[in-house]
């Protein structure tokens, strides 16, 4: 190939979202808004699993929340026809993530599993990724955090405790994914089976509103749910190509 052709091939390769021709896995989560009750079990499970700090009333009063998955609530209509909907919002692991392009030190990047990862010890805290994220799912450590003893005995040893000045966000419980892949390798299998790994939120959801899996596997639950006519992406118009699929809430009308 001549220079132009080589150049164009390289260009095309880097322009592809996710920058890989194929992902090893393409981890996807689906959230069925018709089943979500807004109970918040996912929020607490995530806090327990990922050593998320307890921010405290004062800092929450200053607006510094720290919930890798949060429940947003939206009202429609007025009394007596008011309706309340909940939508869990977490890192969408966008294949065309705006946050990945802007980090000056490449502390956030897209890995071979289709996950948007955050490298805590590379982050210098410019916070531009949080600005660029349209879903606002990135959270900054404004202070070092403290657990009143003996609460720190509960901390998960598989997950870092982040220091001040570092950005963090949902990782789809990458420590669980990593462990599942290790187990698969130990068992002599090459691939993780569908349903074998669940992030903490998916695992605990009492109404089974969330599913998680590899959309490359055509037989997986998530692949089937993506074909549901109710499936959509939030803020699809921003073209971020998220890996989280929501299923529309059914508002069956009464007369």
């Amino acid at each position, binding site marked *: 190939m001549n220079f132009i052709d080589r150049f164009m091939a390289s260009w095309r390769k880097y322009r592809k979202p996710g920058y890989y021709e194929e992902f090893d896995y393409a981890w996807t989560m689906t959230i069925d808004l018709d089943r979500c009750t807004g109970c918040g079990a996912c929020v607490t499970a995530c806090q327990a699993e990922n050593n998320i700090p307890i921010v405290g009333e004062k800092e929450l009063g200053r607006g510094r929340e720290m919930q890798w998955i949060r429940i947003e609530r939206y009202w429609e209509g007025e009394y007596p026809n008011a309706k309340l909907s909940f939508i869990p919002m977490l890192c969408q692991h966008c294949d065309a993530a705006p946050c990945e392009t802007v980090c000056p030190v490449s502390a956030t990047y897209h890995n071979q599993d289709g996950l948007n990862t955050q490298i805590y010890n590379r982050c210098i805290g410019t916070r531009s990724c949080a600005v660029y994220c349209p879903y606002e799912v990135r959270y900054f450590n404004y202070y070092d955090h403290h657990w009143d003893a003996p609460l720190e005995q509960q901390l998960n040893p598989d997950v870092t405790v982040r220091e001040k000045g570092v950005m963090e966000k949902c990782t789809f419980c990458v420590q669980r994914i990593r462990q599942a892949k290790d187990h698969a390798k130990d068992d002599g299998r090459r691939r993780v089976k569908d349903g074998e790994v669940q992030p903490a939120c998916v695992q605990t959801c009492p109404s089974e509103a969330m599913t998680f899996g590899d959309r490359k596997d055509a037989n997986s639950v998530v692949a089937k749910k993506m074909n549901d006519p109710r499936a959509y992406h939030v803020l699809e118009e921003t073209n971020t*190509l998220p890996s989280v699929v929501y299923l529309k809430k059914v508002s*069956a009308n009464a007369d």
Partner: protein
Amino acid sequence: MSNVDRRQFLKLVGAGGVGAGAGFMLAESIKHPVEYLIPYPIPPEEFSPGIATWYNSVCGMCPAGCGISVRTREGRAKKIEGNPLHPVNQGRLCALGQAGLQSLYNPDRLTGPMLQSGERGSEEFIQTTWEESLATVAHRLAAARDGGKNIYLLSEGVRGHLAMLLERFMGGLGSEHLMHYDFAHPHALYAANQRLFGEHALPYYDIRNTRYLLSFGADYLSNWLSPVHHSLGFGHSRQGTDLDRGRFVQIEAKMSLSGAAADEWIPARPGSEGILALGLAHQILAGGSYTGSDFDDWNAALENYSADSVAERTGVAAKTIVRLASEFTKAEPGLAIGGGAVDNHSNAVDTLVAVNLLNYLVGNIGKPGGVVFNSDPVVGGPANNRQANFIAMQQLAEQARQGAIDVLIVNNTNPVFTLPHASGFREALASIPMIVSLSSFMDETTTMADVILPSHSYLESWGDDMPQPGLGFPVAAISQPVVSPLYNTRATGDIILDLAGKLGMKDSMPWDSMEACLKDGWRQIYERSSPDASDFDTFWRDVLVSGVWGEDIHRQDTVVVDKSVIDNIDVAEPEFSGDSEQYPFFLHPYMSTAMYDGRGANLPWMQELPDPMTSIVYGSWVEMNPATAKRLGLLDGDLVSIASEHGSLEAPVVIFPAIMPEVIAMPIGQGHNAFGRYARDRGVNPLQILAPITATSSGSLATHATRVSLTATGRRAPPVQTGGETRQLGRNIVQFTDAGSTPGGHSANLNSIPIVVKTT
């Protein structure tokens, strides 16, 4: 021209070096000292560092009794998950269950036996030893028993073998005064079941298989009976089956979490929900689908509940009443449940009888998707007959005031917090000479104790549980310790057994420990149920490994309703305290998943969990209809004073679109003045100002029967909210669709990258 000479050059270089050194020192001082991560260079034998050990147990955070699997690393509990094998929660767990870890590792746990050293309520205690404290208590109990004085035991609603131990213990003391006290115990529901179905027990409400749920105030997704199980059922009924999507209707004065999930939220005048139910019953009969032999009796009894008359009395449109009845009848099947506010009016029992009646009339009793009766629990006896209603608690207080109680033992229940001030319960305790507490935390009731014999956390204890309500077939699970005890505490069962030993009750309670007691009891289960295991030890291990045991035994009962019940079917108008002029609002105190009855307040995760409907953390608030707020000139965050005939509180206003204009709602759970650093001096407790009105026939406290006044204080105290704007403004974040899923429908053509699927 001059040059820079060597001396000048060196001076310049030296200056630069000092600067660099200073910068380096600054950087180093900002970093943190290295911490060691591996606690045990030479670990004990029970665990391998880096490999997790899972233990199955039973969650103790609320009475539902979900099964849990606890992940431990290096002897520490790290994460609680639901036990996938347990039929109640099937691997899922609610937020409060997840927070059980913070109950175990709470910084404010009581670490050892204590003796009161100051005034009761002053929280001044001195540490003592188990020998001394047990001896003191045993001595005192023996003296009371021998002197014919009254000994009372007030416990949380325990089940299983611990319940049996408490029974035998009190029996050995010659005392009839064993009371279980749970704030959220549905006394009226039990009474209603007794009246209509003839048994004082809770059936299983099969939400999973129902196609139409009519919930009268029951917050089944958040805290009613078994919320995780109901959520599972809800999810399945909605989108987990190939059948038509399940429809959920909620009837209550203020939208609860279940109301938000419902397809329809229908506000009915507070306390009139039972009248509405009878109106629906009337319509069902009028529709002609009920073919039972007692048709005429029912028709006669429900004469006065025509749609128009009921519409006037409840505020629900007649058209809606007719439609609901029709939809409920046509569903295959429909299910009606009642709880929450409906369980807490003066007419609660009548109301719940009416709700039960709906199930009866559509014939879903004993059928999937309907009301399924439970067999007797496997062991321990139904604990519900010991549950103390409000009248019983008032009697206890009265007895105390008259000096008739010599010793009161309190086990992990907090009536000082959950009973209204009007009951005078806390003051009455002053007249009891000796109060012993078995609590793990210094809650309001524990501060009144003279001796504290602190219990283990449920994660450190042996025990067993039969979930209530049952699932239509017998289920039992063993709760086992997942970590070594953190402190010098003991399991409740062990404390009781120890005292029993000291009081000479070895005959009826021969066991050395709770574990031995359990094994003995489960041996009987083993013998009776002929399982696969070849011997008891294998059976015991199998139950521990799987975390649950069950029997495939179902009851097939038909219900025959007594004619006298039919003739007397009626729902009285609800009674409220205070006159409507001076106290124009109905107070609606409600429980949440996170706080439950106040027990979640000392768990930082639960304080940080934003309330789902208002996103408020760390505080209390009062919800009010937008029109009411406008009329009173109140904005979000204005501090108002809420006063009943029995007290007043201050809380900030939150404007809430789904609450009736004459109703104001406040969350239960905050307002502690003890109970640890996360709970105390935070928010207000609406239960304090409730009027002591009880539900007729069940004697339970009618928490929604208090009228209040509301006045602006002129101050502002905006609560801390994590959420922002609550309208979507056309941005299609939550999207809606009219139709349900069509299995095998067309692809949604999502804007995802195409994934190359390898064919090898």
